[in-house]
Protein backbone atom coordinates (compact mmCIF):
# COMPACT_ATOMS: atom_id res chain seq x y z
CA UNK A 1 0.00 0.00 0.00
CA UNK A 2 1.39 3.36 -1.00
CA UNK A 3 2.34 5.73 1.73
CA UNK A 4 0.21 8.86 1.15
CA UNK A 5 3.01 10.97 2.53
CA UNK A 6 5.12 10.00 -0.46
CA UNK A 7 2.42 10.36 -3.11
CA UNK A 8 3.58 11.85 -6.40
CA UNK A 9 0.31 13.82 -6.68
CA UNK A 10 0.51 17.53 -6.07
CA UNK A 11 -1.42 18.69 -2.98
CA UNK A 12 -4.82 20.09 -3.90
CA UNK A 13 -4.84 23.86 -3.75
CA UNK A 14 -7.84 25.18 -1.84
CA UNK A 15 -10.04 27.48 -3.89
CA UNK A 16 -13.03 29.69 -3.14
CA UNK A 17 -15.92 30.07 -5.60
CA UNK A 18 -16.71 33.73 -6.15
CA UNK A 19 -19.18 35.70 -8.24
CA UNK A 20 -17.32 38.66 -9.72
CA UNK A 21 -18.96 41.79 -11.06
CA UNK A 22 -18.33 45.46 -11.61
CA UNK A 23 -19.32 48.34 -9.35
CA UNK A 24 -18.43 51.59 -11.13
CA UNK A 25 -14.69 51.28 -11.83
CA UNK A 26 -14.02 48.46 -9.41
CA UNK A 27 -14.09 44.67 -9.60
CA UNK A 28 -16.03 43.25 -6.69
CA UNK A 29 -16.71 39.67 -5.59
CA UNK A 30 -19.16 37.83 -3.38
CA UNK A 31 -18.84 34.27 -2.22
CA UNK A 32 -20.86 32.25 -4.74
CA UNK A 33 -22.61 30.18 -2.08
CA UNK A 34 -24.54 33.27 -0.99
CA UNK A 35 -25.82 34.13 -4.48
CA UNK A 36 -29.14 32.37 -5.10
CA UNK A 37 -29.77 33.55 -8.66
CA UNK A 38 -29.21 36.34 -11.17
CA UNK A 39 -31.78 38.29 -13.19
CA UNK A 40 -31.76 41.20 -15.64
CA UNK A 41 -34.54 43.03 -13.78
CA UNK A 42 -35.37 43.22 -10.11
CA UNK A 43 -38.19 40.95 -9.07
CA UNK A 44 -38.14 41.28 -5.29
CA UNK A 45 -39.51 44.22 -3.29
CA UNK A 46 -36.24 44.78 -1.48
CA UNK A 47 -33.34 45.94 -3.67
CA UNK A 48 -30.23 48.08 -3.46
CA UNK A 49 -27.55 49.10 -5.93
CA UNK A 50 -24.14 47.77 -4.88
CA UNK A 51 -22.58 51.18 -5.41
CA UNK A 52 -24.81 52.74 -2.77
CA UNK A 53 -23.97 50.01 -0.28
CA UNK A 54 -20.25 50.12 -0.91
CA UNK A 55 -19.32 53.75 -0.75
CA UNK A 56 -22.28 56.08 -0.83
CA UNK A 57 -24.15 57.11 2.25
CA UNK A 58 -27.69 58.16 1.29
CA UNK A 59 -27.26 61.56 2.95
CA UNK A 60 -23.49 61.78 2.92
CA UNK A 61 -21.97 61.17 -0.47
CA UNK A 62 -18.19 61.17 -0.30
CA UNK A 63 -16.29 63.34 -2.76
CA UNK A 64 -14.42 60.30 -4.04
CA UNK A 65 -17.58 58.44 -4.99
CA UNK A 66 -17.84 57.88 -8.72
CA UNK A 67 -21.10 58.92 -10.41
CA UNK A 68 -23.84 56.35 -9.94
CA UNK A 69 -24.34 53.87 -12.75
CA UNK A 70 -27.71 52.12 -13.05
CA UNK A 71 -27.40 48.38 -12.33
CA UNK A 72 -27.54 46.06 -15.33
CA UNK A 73 -27.97 42.81 -13.38
CA UNK A 74 -29.50 41.77 -10.09
CA UNK A 75 -28.04 39.13 -7.77
CA UNK A 76 -30.52 37.50 -5.41
CA UNK A 77 -29.26 37.19 -1.84
CA UNK A 78 -30.94 36.19 1.39
CA UNK A 79 -30.94 37.80 4.83
CA UNK A 80 -33.05 37.40 7.98
CA UNK A 81 -36.04 39.11 6.32
CA UNK A 82 -35.92 36.93 3.22
CA UNK A 83 -34.65 37.43 -0.29
CA UNK A 84 -33.45 40.73 -1.67
CA UNK A 85 -31.55 41.79 -4.76
CA UNK A 86 -28.23 43.54 -5.22
CA UNK A 87 -27.88 45.63 -8.38
CA UNK A 88 -24.50 45.29 -10.08
CA UNK A 89 -22.84 46.19 -13.37
CA UNK A 90 -20.50 44.78 -15.96
CA UNK A 91 -19.71 41.23 -16.89
CA UNK A 92 -20.65 38.76 -14.18
CA UNK A 93 -18.41 35.72 -13.89
CA UNK A 94 -18.09 32.73 -11.61
CA UNK A 95 -14.49 32.04 -10.72
CA UNK A 96 -12.68 29.80 -8.32
CA UNK A 97 -9.76 31.78 -6.98
CA UNK A 98 -6.97 30.15 -4.95
CA UNK A 99 -7.52 30.67 -1.23
CA UNK A 100 -3.94 31.91 -1.02
CA UNK A 101 -4.81 34.81 -3.31
CA UNK A 102 -7.51 36.13 -0.96
CA UNK A 103 -6.41 38.56 1.71
CA UNK A 104 -8.31 39.83 4.76
CA UNK A 105 -8.87 43.55 5.22
CA UNK A 106 -5.87 45.13 7.03
CA UNK A 107 -6.74 45.87 10.66
CA UNK A 108 -6.26 49.60 10.35
CA UNK A 109 -8.88 49.85 7.62
CA UNK A 110 -11.52 47.70 9.26
CA UNK A 111 -12.59 50.51 11.59
CA UNK A 112 -12.72 53.13 8.82
CA UNK A 113 -14.53 51.31 6.00
CA UNK A 114 -17.79 52.82 4.87
CA UNK A 115 -19.31 49.41 4.27
CA UNK A 116 -18.98 46.74 6.98
CA UNK A 117 -19.32 44.19 4.17
CA UNK A 118 -15.89 45.03 2.76
CA UNK A 119 -13.88 42.15 4.17
CA UNK A 120 -10.81 41.73 2.02
CA UNK A 121 -9.06 41.83 -1.30
CA UNK A 122 -8.00 39.52 -4.08
CA UNK A 123 -5.81 40.00 -7.09
CA UNK A 124 -7.09 38.63 -10.36
CA UNK A 125 -4.70 39.14 -13.25
CA UNK A 126 -2.96 41.88 -11.25
CA UNK A 127 -6.25 43.73 -10.84
CA UNK A 128 -7.55 44.50 -7.35
CA UNK A 129 -10.83 42.79 -6.47
CA UNK A 130 -12.86 44.01 -3.47
CA UNK A 131 -14.21 41.06 -1.48
CA UNK A 132 -17.60 41.51 0.17
CA UNK A 133 -19.15 39.46 2.94
CA UNK A 134 -22.68 38.88 1.65
CA UNK A 135 -23.91 38.27 5.20
CA UNK A 136 -23.09 41.88 6.11
CA UNK A 137 -24.80 43.42 3.11
CA UNK A 138 -28.29 44.73 3.67
CA UNK A 139 -30.60 46.68 1.39
CA UNK A 140 -30.94 50.37 2.27
CA UNK A 141 -34.71 50.33 1.84
Amino acid sequence: MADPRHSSEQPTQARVALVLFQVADYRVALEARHVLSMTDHPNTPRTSAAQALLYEAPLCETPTSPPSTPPTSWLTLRDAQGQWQLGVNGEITLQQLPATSLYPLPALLAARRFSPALCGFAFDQKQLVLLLDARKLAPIC
Partner: protein
Amino acid sequence: MPPETPDQRQTPDQQQKLQTLDEAFASHSDADEAVVDVEEPTQQLVIFRSGGQRFALPGSAVNEILPSDQPVYYVPGLPTSTEGVLHLRGRVESVISLHQLLNLPPPDGEPCGVILLVSAAGMRSGVRIEQLDDVCEVPQSALQSPPETMPTALRPYVSALWQVDEQHALALLDPEALFSAYQEGLG
Protein backbone atom coordinates in the same frame (compact mmCIF):
# COMPACT_ATOMS: atom_id res chain seq x y z
CA MET B 1 83.49 83.22 27.25
CA PRO B 2 80.79 80.60 26.55
CA PRO B 3 77.67 81.77 24.65
CA GLU B 4 74.63 82.59 26.71
CA THR B 5 72.05 79.83 26.73
CA PRO B 6 68.36 80.73 26.11
CA ASP B 7 67.48 79.84 29.71
CA GLN B 8 69.97 82.29 30.95
CA ARG B 9 68.31 85.07 28.89
CA GLN B 10 64.82 84.44 30.41
CA THR B 11 63.45 86.15 33.46
CA PRO B 12 62.49 84.06 36.49
CA ASP B 13 58.77 84.40 35.59
CA GLN B 14 59.38 83.02 32.14
CA GLN B 15 61.39 80.11 33.50
CA GLN B 16 58.45 79.01 35.60
CA LYS B 17 56.44 78.44 32.39
CA LEU B 18 58.87 75.94 30.99
CA GLN B 19 57.47 72.45 30.63
CA THR B 20 58.83 69.08 29.89
CA LEU B 21 58.07 67.56 26.52
CA ASP B 22 55.58 65.21 28.14
CA GLU B 23 53.77 68.11 29.74
CA ALA B 24 53.68 69.95 26.44
CA PHE B 25 52.18 66.95 24.66
CA ALA B 26 49.69 66.44 27.46
CA SER B 27 48.30 69.90 26.83
CA HIS B 28 47.23 68.71 23.39
CA SER B 29 45.43 65.64 24.66
CA ASP B 30 41.62 65.26 24.86
CA ALA B 31 41.76 64.70 28.58
CA ASP B 32 39.83 67.86 29.34
CA GLU B 33 37.10 67.19 26.79
CA ALA B 34 33.78 65.62 27.73
CA VAL B 35 33.98 61.90 28.18
CA VAL B 36 31.67 60.07 25.76
CA ASP B 37 30.00 57.17 27.42
CA VAL B 38 29.92 54.56 24.68
CA GLU B 39 27.59 52.47 26.78
CA GLU B 40 24.91 55.15 26.81
CA PRO B 41 21.67 53.73 25.41
CA THR B 42 20.74 54.99 21.99
CA GLN B 43 17.61 54.93 19.90
CA GLN B 44 17.43 54.48 16.17
CA LEU B 45 15.35 57.13 14.43
CA VAL B 46 13.95 57.16 10.92
CA ILE B 47 13.88 60.84 10.00
CA PHE B 48 11.55 62.04 7.27
CA ARG B 49 9.57 64.98 5.94
CA SER B 50 5.83 65.25 5.70
CA GLY B 51 3.87 68.40 4.93
CA GLY B 52 7.17 70.26 4.74
CA GLN B 53 8.05 69.43 8.35
CA ARG B 54 10.63 67.03 9.73
CA PHE B 55 9.55 64.15 11.92
CA ALA B 56 11.01 60.90 13.18
CA LEU B 57 9.64 57.47 13.93
CA PRO B 58 11.41 54.95 16.16
CA GLY B 59 13.51 52.65 14.00
CA SER B 60 12.15 49.70 15.98
CA ALA B 61 8.68 50.41 14.55
CA VAL B 62 9.75 50.76 10.93
CA ASN B 63 9.97 47.34 9.32
CA GLU B 64 10.81 48.39 5.83
CA ILE B 65 11.26 51.39 3.56
CA LEU B 66 9.43 50.83 0.28
CA PRO B 67 10.37 52.63 -2.93
CA SER B 68 8.18 55.35 -4.40
CA ASP B 69 7.23 53.16 -7.37
CA GLN B 70 5.58 50.54 -5.14
CA PRO B 71 2.08 50.13 -6.65
CA VAL B 72 -0.74 51.25 -4.34
CA TYR B 73 -4.30 50.24 -5.20
CA TYR B 74 -7.01 52.75 -4.42
CA VAL B 75 -9.90 51.36 -2.38
CA PRO B 76 -13.27 53.16 -2.49
CA GLY B 77 -15.33 53.72 0.61
CA LEU B 78 -12.45 54.74 2.88
CA PRO B 79 -11.45 58.19 4.21
CA THR B 80 -9.24 60.38 2.05
CA SER B 81 -6.38 59.83 4.48
CA THR B 82 -6.28 56.23 3.26
CA GLU B 83 -4.30 56.03 0.06
CA GLY B 84 -5.16 52.39 -0.56
CA VAL B 85 -3.51 49.02 -0.18
CA LEU B 86 -0.31 47.48 -1.43
CA HIS B 87 0.48 43.88 -2.22
CA LEU B 88 3.81 42.90 -0.77
CA ARG B 89 5.26 39.40 -0.64
CA GLY B 90 2.03 37.57 0.08
CA ARG B 91 0.46 40.20 2.30
CA VAL B 92 -1.87 43.11 1.74
CA GLU B 93 -1.01 46.23 3.76
CA SER B 94 -2.92 49.48 4.12
CA VAL B 95 -1.27 52.75 3.12
CA ILE B 96 -2.25 55.85 5.05
CA SER B 97 -1.24 59.50 5.08
CA LEU B 98 -0.56 61.42 8.29
CA HIS B 99 -1.42 64.85 6.91
CA GLN B 100 -4.92 65.10 8.34
CA LEU B 101 -4.00 63.52 11.65
CA LEU B 102 -1.08 65.91 12.17
CA ASN B 103 -2.92 68.88 10.70
CA LEU B 104 -0.34 69.30 7.93
CA PRO B 105 -1.03 70.93 4.57
CA PRO B 106 -2.25 68.33 2.07
CA PRO B 107 0.25 67.28 -0.60
CA ASP B 108 -0.16 68.71 -4.09
CA GLY B 109 -1.19 66.28 -6.81
CA GLU B 110 -0.58 62.56 -6.84
CA PRO B 111 1.01 60.89 -3.81
CA CYS B 112 4.76 60.69 -4.13
CA GLY B 113 7.65 59.83 -1.87
CA VAL B 114 8.50 56.59 -0.18
CA ILE B 115 6.33 54.41 2.06
CA LEU B 116 7.41 53.38 5.54
CA LEU B 117 6.03 50.02 6.61
CA VAL B 118 5.26 50.63 10.29
CA SER B 119 4.24 48.17 13.01
CA ALA B 120 2.54 49.38 16.18
CA ALA B 121 -0.34 48.50 18.46
CA GLY B 122 -0.48 45.00 16.98
CA MET B 123 -1.07 46.41 13.48
CA ARG B 124 1.02 47.05 10.42
CA SER B 125 0.49 49.70 7.78
CA GLY B 126 2.32 51.64 5.16
CA VAL B 127 2.73 55.34 5.95
CA ARG B 128 3.31 57.63 2.99
CA ILE B 129 6.01 60.23 3.59
CA GLU B 130 7.30 62.90 1.25
CA GLN B 131 11.00 62.37 1.74
CA LEU B 132 13.26 60.09 3.74
CA ASP B 133 16.06 62.18 5.28
CA ASP B 134 18.11 59.84 7.42
CA VAL B 135 18.27 56.76 9.59
CA CYS B 136 20.49 57.41 12.60
CA GLU B 137 21.22 56.50 16.21
CA VAL B 138 20.80 59.20 18.85
CA PRO B 139 21.54 58.97 22.60
CA GLN B 140 18.41 58.51 24.68
CA SER B 141 19.52 61.47 26.74
CA ALA B 142 19.20 63.71 23.66
CA LEU B 143 15.46 63.06 23.51
CA GLN B 144 13.52 65.53 25.60
CA SER B 145 9.91 65.73 26.66
CA PRO B 146 7.74 67.65 24.20
CA PRO B 147 7.46 71.30 25.24
CA GLU B 148 4.19 72.89 26.30
CA THR B 149 4.45 75.17 23.27
CA MET B 150 4.02 72.27 20.85
CA PRO B 151 0.99 72.71 18.57
CA THR B 152 -2.13 71.11 20.01
CA ALA B 153 -2.68 68.99 16.90
CA LEU B 154 0.74 67.35 17.29
CA ARG B 155 0.84 66.91 21.05
CA PRO B 156 -1.03 63.57 21.31
CA TYR B 157 1.27 61.96 18.76
CA VAL B 158 4.70 63.23 19.83
CA SER B 159 6.60 61.18 22.39
CA ALA B 160 9.80 63.23 22.43
CA LEU B 161 11.65 66.11 20.88
CA TRP B 162 15.19 65.88 19.53
CA GLN B 163 17.04 69.18 19.52
CA VAL B 164 19.29 68.50 16.55
CA ASP B 165 21.14 71.81 16.94
CA GLU B 166 20.44 75.30 18.23
CA GLN B 167 18.02 76.06 15.42
CA HIS B 168 16.51 72.71 14.50
CA ALA B 169 14.40 70.27 16.44
CA LEU B 170 12.28 67.38 15.26
CA ALA B 171 9.37 65.58 16.78
CA LEU B 172 9.57 61.87 17.47
CA LEU B 173 6.16 60.45 16.64
CA ASP B 174 4.49 57.72 18.67
CA PRO B 175 3.31 55.13 16.11
CA GLU B 176 0.92 53.49 18.58
CA ALA B 177 -0.81 56.80 19.22
CA LEU B 178 -1.03 57.47 15.49
CA PHE B 179 -2.57 54.10 14.65
CA SER B 180 -4.95 54.18 17.60
CA ALA B 181 -6.18 57.65 16.66
CA TYR B 182 -6.62 56.60 13.05
CA GLN B 183 -8.65 53.59 14.15
CA GLU B 184 -10.82 55.81 16.30
CA GLY B 185 -11.77 57.85 13.26
CA LEU B 186 -9.34 60.76 13.52
CA GLY B 187 -7.44 61.85 10.47
